[in-house]
């Protein structure tokens, strides 16, 4: 087991400002199984994570946390390549797989792998080349995955998969983003799925997963240019969706019926132009742009996070304005909010960091 240091940063309200994090306190902690810097990745949580506690894995040397990242334990050897998914309702049931570049002529995709012992051992799933797992529910045995053919549905917890996709997305759009909507009724989970065309047009759909045998998709909720990142939260006030795009953050507070684009404070990491109408300025191409990760804080109304090509940003007013969180640099690729542990976990291309959340 390789022991590495993960920096913990205290996130607190600015005493005199507008509430954005400003008082920072880095607290190094030792993670018994996490490996160093660039090789660390946080797996997606299961849907039920918010209800039953925070189950997290890091890959590299596989490590597991059952308390939202407060403590870690070794879990096994490095898992198979690709995306790692943890089952909601069974922290030891895992899927790992990768989807190849779909337009390549001869991609030789790897098989999906499955583990029932928390990653100690893995078994290939026959007949599943190029299946990237997206989500898994132990109770209903529902699993979702993406292949070059589209969105795949397994009804036996990922043990078998159809070759043809479920007719949930519009043809011609590849699965390019996915997020479980946190806070939905565990008996009727829901998710957001993003599809992107060959020319970079993206469409967002909401998936109703109440009937594992017959998932249903909404009409397209929004259309935008380029890829994106997704987050969804259900509460007594309805469903709130957040989409990170090249031009800013799209926010819907009414389940996708209406949307507002928010870019204030994100000017240095997003595009100033509509790329569908003309060339992207060279300067913006060179510096990079995009929001590869977004998150909604279920513990504090209106607090949103945007993981960008250069650092983490936070909004305390539901996305009206954004401010950079000091101390987190590089491309943020994943954000996990762990309410029970009261902390945020941020994966970048440089490290994984934890930020205790101010109440």
């Amino acid at each position: 087991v390789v022991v590495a240091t993960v920096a913990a940063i205290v996130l607190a309200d600015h005493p005199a400002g507008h509430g954005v994090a400003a008082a920072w306190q880095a607290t190094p902690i030792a993670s018994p199984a996490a490996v160093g810097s660039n090789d660390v990745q946080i797996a997606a949580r299961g849907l039920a994570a918010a209800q039953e506690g925070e189950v997290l894995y890091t890959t590299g040397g596989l490590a597991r946390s059952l308390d939202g990242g407060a403590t870690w334990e070794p879990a096994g050897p490095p898992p198979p390549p690709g995306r790692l998914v943890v089952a909601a309702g069974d922290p030891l049931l895992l899927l790992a797989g990768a989807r190849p570049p779909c337009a390549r002529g001869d991609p030789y995709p790897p098989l999906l792998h499955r583990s029932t012992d928390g990653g100690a051992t893995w078994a290939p799933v026959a007949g599943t080349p190029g299946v990237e797992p997206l989500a898994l529910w132990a109770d209903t045995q529902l699993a979702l995955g993406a292949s070059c053919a589209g969105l795949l549905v397994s009804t036996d917890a990922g043990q078998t998969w159809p070759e043809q996709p479920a007719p949930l997305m519009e043809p011609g759009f590849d699965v390019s983003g996915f997020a479980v909507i946190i806070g939905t009724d565990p008996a009727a989970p829901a998710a957001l799925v993003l599809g992107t065309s060959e020319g970079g047009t993206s469409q967002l759909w909401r998936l109703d997963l109440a009937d594992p045998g017959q998932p249903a998709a909404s009409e397209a909720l929004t259309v935008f240019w380029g890829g994106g990142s997704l987050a969804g939260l259900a509460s007594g006030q309805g469903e709130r969706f957040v989409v990170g795009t090249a031009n800013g953050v799209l926010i819907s507070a009414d389940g996708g019926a209406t949307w507002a684009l928010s870019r204030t404070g994100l000017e240095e990491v997003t595009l100033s132009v509509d790329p569908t109408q003309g060339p992207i300025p060279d300067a913006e191409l060179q510096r990079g742009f995009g929001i590869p990760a977004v998150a909604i804080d279920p513990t504090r109304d209106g607090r949103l996070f945007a993981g960008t090509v250069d650092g983490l940003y936070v909004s305390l007013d539901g996305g009206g304005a954004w401010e950079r969180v000091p101390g987190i640099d590089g491309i943020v690729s994943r954000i996990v909010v762990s309410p029970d542990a009261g902390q945020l976990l941020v994966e970048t291309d440089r490290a994984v960091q934890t930020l205790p959340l101010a109440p």
Partner: protein
Amino acid sequence: MPLHEQTQVVGVGPRITRERFAQILSDRGSPAAMEATAGWQAITQHQVDPLFALAIFKQESQLGTQGVCAIHQTHSPGNTRTSRTGDGQVIATEFGPFVKYASWVQGWRDLAFRLVDPTYVYFQEGRTTIRPIIERWAPAWDPTAAGFDQPEGYIRNVVDFMNQFVTDDVVVVEPTGIGNVPLPAGIVNRLIPDFNNRCWDNLGQRTIKGVVYHRQLGSNWGTDGYFRSVPPGGSSACPEPGTQWVWGGCNGLTDYGVDHVTGEILQWNDPTGKAHPGISPNRSAWASGPVHNPYGDGLAFLEDHGWDRNVVNRDQVSIEISGLYENSISDACIESVAALSAYYADQFGIPWHVYPKVPGKSYNFTRWHQEFCDGIKPCPGTVVMERTGDIIDRTIEIMKEHQT
């Protein structure tokens, strides 16, 4: 000059317009009338005269209104007993086994393809004129043709029918200037540097042997920006492929984009494989894969190259047309796509009067993305597929203009 039994009907252009072809079927109450335009296209893509195919249809089943074709709704203008394309299923009938196709287009395509299939008797025996074809098609010994004057009566009826409806005899002006077709004017140089796109492989020298049509499901400039979008640090910083799909420069690339309204051509990659400043040589863009259940010209092209999947992106030009699948494409767009297609077909040495067929091969120079990945990609979608005949017609005109 009237047509006769030695008139060539394979490896020639059409002697009947698609409109007249459709009108004849419609006027005679043929059940194939609904798919007439696509049927005409399916026949001509194999360089078979659609007037000859129509004459066979007339002789076999009175244009689908009589006999096994009508009784069992086989969608088979040729009343074929086997399938050469792989389409259709053999069914048992009171007349023996016959192929039943899912559509008339499939039936027309099989009728035409069997005449040019290099693994089949017509091609192998050089039967390209009316009499030799019919002598094989309807031999005297056919037990189900008892009472019919085969093949003499059959040949006579075919020739008579064709002379009744011929609208334009084939006049082939032999090309003398192959290699003279220019690239279309006004191509916007938007070659994407390696820094901004990692979606290519160096698979060796690119040699263009076909064009593949795509649909962007987006705008031409939007695709331009998408293909050059990369994280900070450039394409070398692209994440592994998968759901984190933020940057298009990490996911795909094609050679050209054509605006479906204005016809503006953007060039993103060089199909010749030539190096440019900041651009590596022989970039085979991740454009026309994945190879999955290929069919039609895609399948034939792969089979002809021993299933070497590298040919898909190395040996074909990829052309992305802007717009959604259901958006119409303008004449300007057709002109641009045809001009690009004509240039590369000419560079490959295809004479205008043979196009879109690749000489000596069973397949066409013009292909659709979906022909390499059936069931995965509907690309380029119905509108482009329906207008491919018009693109081919214009391509031939451009080639003829410069080759003769």
